[in-house]
């Protein structure tokens, strides 16, 4: 009888959150070992949950009876628009990329892009490569170098071109998965554009690229986890962002006119947003609602533009 009362008290204080975390863990272990206690616990849990729901329903009924006056007169809006948001959440376009795990990755260079990056990329005159795979690699290679340069620009001042070229090579060797993901919000419009761009640049790029044939069959397709974006209208925050539960929340009226650029760099994924002719850096560990401010570093902007145009 006394043990019965004892269990009753134990279950009760567990369900009402009155145990220390240590006691709670001990109690949970006991539950696992003792099926009879477990079934008593389950019944108590059902009862306590029901008492809570009973009270909640009571309070809700009280509130429902309150006349809210002017505040209550709304026109019914956007009932179906919920579907729109759901669709938005799921949209993303991925670029395929090469698996560059091999440490002796070939040097890949591109005249046009190296110029954009102030000649920091080693050049090589190479035979024309024109299979589909080679083209993919060429473009990827270009992205990768831009990404590397971008990384460096962020943390260091310009160094002599030669040094940079070597450093680039080092980073290339280390980096395992360089990808670019562009996520236009309106794929019906963006998708065809992207394909056109590839075609247009085929000639220029392939002329400057050497891709050893033995590397071709190592190319695999890799998907990046996409960043889910949710636009929120907030009375206080008009142009802000935050990351919450691995999702990006944008506060303000963006009208879906933003683009998210995810760049896979040797140090992790960097996320940028393009909106109305400006680029914004989005820090993934930013869990507080933070104002968006445009990037002002000219070289970084140029690099991002190059990536975006691709």
């Amino acid at each position, binding site marked *: 009888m006394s043990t019965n009362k004892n269990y009753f008290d134990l279950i*009760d204080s567990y*369900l*009402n*959150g009155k145990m220390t975390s240590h006691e709670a863990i001990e109690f949970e272990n006991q539950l696992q070992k003792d099926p009879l206690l477990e079934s008593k616990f389950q*019944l*108590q849990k*059902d*009862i*306590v*949950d*029901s*008492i*809570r*729901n*009973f*009270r*909640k329903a*009571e*309070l*809700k009924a*009280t*509130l*429902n009876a*309150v*006349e*809210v*006056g*002017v*505040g*209550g007169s*709304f026109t*019914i*809006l*956007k*009932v179906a*628009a*919920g579907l*729109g*948001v*759901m669709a938005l*959440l799921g949209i993303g376009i991925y670029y395929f990329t090469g698996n560059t795990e091999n440490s002796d990755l070939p040097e890949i260079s591109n005249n046009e892009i190296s110029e954009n990056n102030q000649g920091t990329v080693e050049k090589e005159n190479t035979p024309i490569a024109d299979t589909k795979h080679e083209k993919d690699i060429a473009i990827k290679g270009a992205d990768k170098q831009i990404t590397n340069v971008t990384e460096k620009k962020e943390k260091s001042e310009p160094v002599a071109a030669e040094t940079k070229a070597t450093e680039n090579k080092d980073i290339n060797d280390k980096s395992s998965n360089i990808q670019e993901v562009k996520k236009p919000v309106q794929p019906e419009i963006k998708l065809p554009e992207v394909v056109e761009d590839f075609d247009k640049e085929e000639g220029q790029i392939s002329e400057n690229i050497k891709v050893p044939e033995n590397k071709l069959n190592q190319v695999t397709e890799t998907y990046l986890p996409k960043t889910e974006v*949710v636009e*929120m*209208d*907030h*009375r206080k925050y008009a142009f802000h962002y935050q990351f*919450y*539960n691995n999702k990006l929340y944008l506060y303000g009226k963006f009208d879906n006119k933003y683009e998210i650029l995810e760049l896979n760099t040797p140090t992790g994924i960097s996320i940028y947003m393009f909106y109305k002719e400006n680029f914004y850096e989005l820090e993934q560990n930013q869990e507080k609602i933070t104002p968006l401010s445009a990037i002002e570093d000219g070289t970084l902007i140029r690099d991002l533009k190059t990536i975006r145009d691709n």
Partner: protein
Amino acid sequence: MKDREILDKIAKGDESALKYLYKKYYRMMTKLVISNNGSEDEAKDIYQDALIVFWQKVIGGQLILTSRISTYLYSICLNLWRKELDRKNRLSHEEKDEAQYLDNDREEREKIIHECINELGDTCKRILTYYYFEKMSMQEIAEKLEFANTDTAKTKKYKCKKRLDQLVKQKYSASDFLD
């Protein structure tokens, strides 16, 4: 009413302060949901839930408010609405059937217990809901229900709970839930 006054009243379980608060911010809070793709009913539901969470926290003494009440309520509404959007999103994709099945079972049991709670006297209902939902201390319950002292509240709570357990067990075995 000033924030401080509202908080003091709610801490004592004064429902009139809850109603006052509900009215005061109804428009502001429901607008948040409505302008983020929610219907008016959803907005009302979220706001009520947020307000009840607030009520629980203030009474349970778990809340040290550093901002204005409206700011705090707004952030609860925002989080609840995000969760709801997530839930709707997930349900529209998968596991609808299984969730439905589990819900039915739970609903059935809850309905039975609900009937049992209704069979209790009003004092028992108050004691048990104050204890398990508002998480008031025995002393607060004694004051609120004008008992002689804390021990009276404790004894009554124990008896009410035993009574409810018995009722539930009877109904459960009658409907083949246990054994």
